[in-house]
């Protein structure tokens, strides 16, 4: 291809409309990023990266509590490595709390899957000495607390924690969540003794639905309350 040569500089400062012969380097498309992303595993392709970034954007836009958790990590400089897996057998995602690496099932890259793991990271920061101590004993408590948290912030009609339960148990759980949130208008900052008993009842049902997680040790859901108190959400 022939390119016209610029005329010699006549010293007038007028280049005659020719482009600057030494332009700044053209901007290249910077890889998309997010405050919480340390990096992606090599196996995560561009499309999956976008899905993960979209899920993170949605997470922080969903509601006050999730925005609070997101900002808390962002302000603390907490970052995560994101990987995907096509061979996860029983879970949609998991987090390695030693390295803050979140691995997501390639078929379920959603805000919920990402959000679950971010909440597990938040739990890890709330419980004294972290939550690794509750694996395996107490794992079911940690998992149920996460599901319980999702159901409160998404409103009582969702009831994901009781997936697989009988209709009457599902309904009882939804009514109870509606009760402790005053009809989905407040975030509970504690539970009365009666409601803690009810919480333990549903925790036990959750264990029955997920018996491989081991028996519950009936932890108080302190990370849930912390997320409602600490970020000032009503």
């Amino acid at each position: 291809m022939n390119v016209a040569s610029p005329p010699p500089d006549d010293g007038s400062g007028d280049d005659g409309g020719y482009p600057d012969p030494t332009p700044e380097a053209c901007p290249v498309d910077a890889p998309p990023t997010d405050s919480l992303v340390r990096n992606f595993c090599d196996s995560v392709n561009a499309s999956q990266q976008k899905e993960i970034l979209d899920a993170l954007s949605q997470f922080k836009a969903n509601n006050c509590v999730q925005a609070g958790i997101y900002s808390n990590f962002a302000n603390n400089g907490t970052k995560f490595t994101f990987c995907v897996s096509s061979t996860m057998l029983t879970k949609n995602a998991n987090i390695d709390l030693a390295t803050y690496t979140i691995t997501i099932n390639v078929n379920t890259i959603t805000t919920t899957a990402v959000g679950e793991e971010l909440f597990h990271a938040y739990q890890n920061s709330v419980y004294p000495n972290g939550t690794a101590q509750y694996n395996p004993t107490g794992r079911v408590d940690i998992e149920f607390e996460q599901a319980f948290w999702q159901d409160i912030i998404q409103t009582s009609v969702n009831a994901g924690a009781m997936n697989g339960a009988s209709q009457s148990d599902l309904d009882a759980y939804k009514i109870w969540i509606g009760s402790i949130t005053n009809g989905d208008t407040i975030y509970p900052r504690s539970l009365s003794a009666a409601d803690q008993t009810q919480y333990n009842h549903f925790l036990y049902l959750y264990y029955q639905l997920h018996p491989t997680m081991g028996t519950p040790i009936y932890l108080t859901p302190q990370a849930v309350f912390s997320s409602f108190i600490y970020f000032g959400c009503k």
Partner: protein
Amino acid sequence: MKNLLVIALLFNLVRVNTCLTQDTDFNKPLVHASKESYAVNEFAYDHHKTVNNTNNYLYKKILKYPEHAVHPELRDKQYDRSLVAKIFYDTFPGSRLKKLADENLDLLIDFDSDLQGNVLEVSFVFKNNISFTPIELEKLEIRLKKEVKFTLNDKVFKGYDYVPITTFVNFKRLINHTADAVR
């Protein structure tokens, strides 16, 4: 001719009896509305009862979740809440709505939808002391099944047999026309 008269007489007797057996509350295990019959189950938690059309069967099943099913989010199962509110306004005259609002309790509605978003079954759950009548819930059921349509996230519900969706309706909020009357 005599046989015809006997048949007509029997037919009328059945009709009269049907009308006579229409129930006015949900205080027994099986109640009858104008056309439909409902099974009533006392509910273990907090003095509630569940009302199901006797033709319903999905509520008796335990939904099998496909492998790798994610917990659906609210936006994965959308519907027109204002339409549900309208059905309630149409079903309950103002004075009746006010009485139910004074009771200030929620009505929980469990929908079961096919994957195209069509309502297959409707169940009602409410506190024992809410004064619904079988005719009222029958009217609600007919219109909810006919008019409500869900927009489901195909990706999330892939592999489901049917999709359970719950709605709470608060009568106090209905009468105040607040946006979260149906939630």
